[in-house]
């Protein structure tokens, strides 16, 4: 079966549709609803995969809603980058489908909404649509964040809601400013107008507002205070998806904004600043934190900061580094959360846990090594690309950022291997051993296997990513594909 | 053939001269104490008596080996220490080599004493090594300064350089401050008062010698001869121009030892820590000043 540009809408539309149907089906049978939801998720993954060859042939698949071409119509733009994240989201949702005690038709509905919103975020070629999908995603996330039905969960979710709502307002304000300045919200159209209309204070203000707005989801530095609370209080599987996949989707949006709209050095500098502070803040806070969930949450902030630094480097080298970091984090962080699920509470209480479950501890070491960036694991190559891009771009800001990241790496190793030391310590007598069932550990192991596979095939992967990044960083190509007749 | 003669003669000469030096030391001490002092052959009597003991108690193989290392080390040192007419193997090992060869008997003694399993001995060695650290610091400064000044570490060359212009080119004349520091360090090296805390007979029962009897003790007496000789000759070689012949050479050696022995008797005994403090303060300080002068020149 070959899919064409028209099917690009499917990853958004299908889950949205099913999400609305699901409460009805749920009345009949919870099991059926769950099955339906998961089948839908699977379908989205399959569709995205099937779209892949077509997307790679022509660079991207562009679908204009209702046949109205851009800039008037609403456009969906599926390049390899977007499709990859759709697949990642769908697979992530499948892999981390809710545990039975947290599961219900409502949760499944939110799950599908998340899928729809997330897919929409990356696929949409229109600023306002992006905002809409961002909101859908956010709403789904509030619900999921509270789905553990604990006080802490509700509290964290509420806090997140407040922050996110403000963030959305900022984003909307930013979009309004863009509209005011350029008169259009189509990204392709904007990319052609950006040079003349989005520079200066107006454009920058819009950018800052949008970054702060979307940054809430992307865990960017000042607006990420919700992260540790929610990631700790939410069901771990939700956390895994949020930290692993959803945050990257917001980051992709910011990437699109940067590439297409704001190639202004000031804007890039702003993101660099936020990213660098995010790295330092995240790692230091993680160093201080005393339980695994929080540690990983902070670490996640730092990794997103890393991505921001990468995207702030102009040219495709930075984009490549950012995508690499994102993909790496996408594999590693969910696996970390799988481990944190069983190893709850104070880290100090985990003494000797590694001896009772060697496989889990081994996985922890593998993931730690990769996230620290030890060759030959993928994390190293990602960081290498980031550094190379930064150094080649030059400039005091970039060099400072590299220095900060290098120093932060040491801190990262400090807290991760502090845990390793505790895991392999001698357990105090009389405490029941913490053991993983294979089922619990399976998603983590799968991701670990992916990591190793990536290590082995790092050369072809690198080539693929380079092509993808080059394509994503090419604003002209974007415009030419979306706008009829090209330019 | 000359070499073979050197190999045999040099240690023998050293031993005989050493006996005389020991005798001188004891006579000088007696004179200062207004005594008559021992007869001429006393050092020989002592050594023969000790070797002639009919029972010889050993504390194990290492105890015996130590005695061999002791003698072997000093015999080697003598062979690498050029004296008038006898160059030995001095061109195959220089001043630095000699300094380290001289540590072999020390190490041997230390090992032998240790294997006696007597804490008095171990304490003695601990103090002796500490004292070594104390006096070797200024001594090292002196050696480095002298070597840099002469531009060589070859002892034969060092002697030749000094003999070029008579006493004016002696080390003592060209670098008097270093030479003075060297004399102070030499005194410490001889283990005479006030630096003989490691012997301390009334406190630790002569320390390293506690368990030494018979020929073991005898070897230590022999070692004393070698030690006086080596220290004296080394100083003479470094700062007093060696000697064209034995007639000029020996008086210098005796003078060096005499200064030390004559000074010794007016002192009490320093504690180990005071030995270090003194050695690291005065001789080292003086030697560093001397070194600075050498470097400036």
């Amino acid at each position: 079966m070959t899919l064409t540009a028209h099917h690009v809408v499917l990853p958004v539309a299908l889950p949205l549709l099913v999400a609305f149907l699901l409460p009805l089906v749920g009345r009949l049978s919870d099991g059926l609803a769950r099955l339906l939801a998961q089948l839908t998720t699977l379908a989205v993954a399959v569709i995205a995969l099937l779209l892949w060859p077509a997307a790679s042939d022509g660079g991207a698949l562009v679908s204009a809603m209702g046949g109205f071409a851009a800039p008037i119509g609403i456009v969906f733009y599926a390049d390899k980058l977007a499709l990859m994240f759709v697949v990642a989201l769908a697979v992530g949702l499948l892999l981390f489908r809710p545990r039975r005690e947290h599961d219900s038709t409502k949760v499944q509905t939110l799950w599908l909404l998340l899928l729809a919103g997330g897919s929409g975020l990356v696929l949409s070629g229109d600023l306002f649509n992006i905002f809409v999908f961002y909101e859908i995603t956010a709403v789904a996330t509030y619900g999921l964040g509270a789905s553990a039905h604990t006080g802490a969960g509700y509290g964290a979710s509420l806090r997140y809601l407040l922050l996110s709502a403000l963030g959305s307002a900022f984003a909307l304000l930013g979009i309004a400013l863009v509209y005011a300045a350029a008169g259009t919200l189509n990204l392709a159209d904007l990319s052609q107008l950006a040079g003349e209309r989005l520079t200066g204070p107006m454009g920058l203000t819009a950018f800052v507002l949008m970054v702060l707005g979307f940054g809430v989801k992307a865990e960017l530095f000042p607006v990420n205070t919700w992260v540790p609370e929610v990631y700790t209080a939410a069901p771990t599987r939700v956390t895994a998806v949020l930290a692993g996949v959803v945050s990257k989707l917001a980051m992709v949006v910011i990437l699109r904004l940067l590439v297409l709209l704001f190639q202004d050095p000031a804007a890039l500098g702003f993101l660099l600043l936020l990213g660098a502070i995010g790295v330092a803040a995240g790692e230091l806070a993680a160093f201080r934190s005393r339980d695994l969930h929080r540690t990983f949450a902070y670490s996640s902030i730092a990794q997103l900061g890393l991505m921001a630094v990468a995207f702030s480097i102009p040219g495709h080298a930075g984009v490549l580094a950012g995508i690499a970091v994102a993909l790496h984090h996408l594999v590693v962080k969910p696996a970390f959360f799988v481990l944190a699920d069983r190893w709850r509470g104070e880290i100090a209480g985990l003494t000797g846990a590694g001896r009772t479950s060697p496989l889990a501890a081994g996985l922890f070491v593998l993931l730690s090594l990769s996230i620290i960036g030890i060759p030959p694991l993928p994390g190293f190559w990602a960081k290498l690309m980031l550094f190379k891009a930064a150094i080649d771009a030059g400039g005091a800001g970039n060099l400072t950022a590299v220095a900060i990241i290098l120093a932060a790496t040491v801190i990262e190793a400090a807290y991760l291997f502090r845990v390793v030391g505790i895991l392999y310590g001698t357990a105090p007598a009389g405490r029941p051993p913490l053991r993983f069932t294979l089922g619990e550990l399976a998603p983590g192991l799968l991701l670990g296997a992916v990591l190793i596979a990536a290590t082995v095939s790092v050369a072809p992967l690198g080539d693929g990513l380079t092509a993808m990044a080059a394509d994503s960083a090419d604003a002209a190509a974007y415009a030419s594909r979306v706008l009829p007749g090209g330019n | 053939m000359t070499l073979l003669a050197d190999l045999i003669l040099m240690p023998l000469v050293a031993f005989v001269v050493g006996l005389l030096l020991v005798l001188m030391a004891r006579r000088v001490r007696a004179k200062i104490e207004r005594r008559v002092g021992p007869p001429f052959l006393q050092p020989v009597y002592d050594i023969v008596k000790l070797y002639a003991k009919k029972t010889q108690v050993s504390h194990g193989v290492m105890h015996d080996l130590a005695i061999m290392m002791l003698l072997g080390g000093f015999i080697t040192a003598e062979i690498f220490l050029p004296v008038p007419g006898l160059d030995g193997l001095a061109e195959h090992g220089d001043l630095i080599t000699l300094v380290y060869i001289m540590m072999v008997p020390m190490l041997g003694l230390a090992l032998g004493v240790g294997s006696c399993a007597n804490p008095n001995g171990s304490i003695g060695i601990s103090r002796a090594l500490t004292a070594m650290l104390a006096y070797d610091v200024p001594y090292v400064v002196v050696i480095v300064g002298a070597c840099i000044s002469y531009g060589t570490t070859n002892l034969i060359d060092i002697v030749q350089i000094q003999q070029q212009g008579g006493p004016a080119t002696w080390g003592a004349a060209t670098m008097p401050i270093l030479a003075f520091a060297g004399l102070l360090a030499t005194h410490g090296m001889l283990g005479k008062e006030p630096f003989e805390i490691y012997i301390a007979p009334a406190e630790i029962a002569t320390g390293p010698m506690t368990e030494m009897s018979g020929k073991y003790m005898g070897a230590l007496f022999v070692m004393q001869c070698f030690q006086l000789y080596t220290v004296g000759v080394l100083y003479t070689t470094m700062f007093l121009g060696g000697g064209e012949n034995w007639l000029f050479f020996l008086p210098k050696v005796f003078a060096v030892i005499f200064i030390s022995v004559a000074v010794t008797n007016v002192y009490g005994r320093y504690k180990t820590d005071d030995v270090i403090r003194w050695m690291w303060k005065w001789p080292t300080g003086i030697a560093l000043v001397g070194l600075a002068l050498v470097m400036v020149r």
Partner: protein
Amino acid sequence: MSDTTPVIPDQPEVCRTVDAEERGVWRRVMDRFADHCRARSLFVLHYCTGCGAIELPPTITSRFDMERVGVSPMVTPRQADILLITGYLSVKTLKRVILSYEQMQSPKYVLGFGSCTINGGMYWNSYATVKRLDQYIPADGFIAGCMPRPEAVQQVFLDLMKKIDAGQANAWQDYYLNYDRYLGNQMALFGEEWHTPVDVIAEAEHYGYVGDGTRGRFTEILDRHAAYALRDAPEDYPERGANERLLP
């Protein structure tokens, strides 16, 4: 006190027995030479048991200067040739004296200094002092008097030197040859548990000084608890004592 009765010889035995090794001319010359040197180099153990010690400083220092004749003080028994018993010996001190004597290397000489070492002197009726030194260790000479003057001390040294030079100061051999007798006397005083860490019999065997009196009924008692030697320590040998440093 046990059933071991003290054995008190009426007359010290003549101590000179000729070594098998001493027959050759060369050996004789060497021996003569050695004796010559031995006589001229005498190290005295710094072990002052009683009040007579006060007479030693003048003997050694500038007034009389013993170094003139090769006598000098030494600190440990290992290094010494002469054990000078300067006065009375309490029972407790005697134990130390015996140990020190055994740790000295032969040829070794014992000089009794003052009347106390000869007959108890002014302590003749004390329960705690030893009356006759030569019952416990063989003595080469005595200095009578209370106190003897330094001149007398010198005289005994000179006499001893003459004896050594003539090869006649051989009391030390008696200790090996008649060890059982000396041990018996010691045991009579100290009890059957008495022993020193020094293995006198092994030494005698090693150097060929075993005589008929070396072994006997008292050395048999010794054998029963001669466990000080590490190599044949029995199972019940005392383990680490209370003075062992306690670990944290």
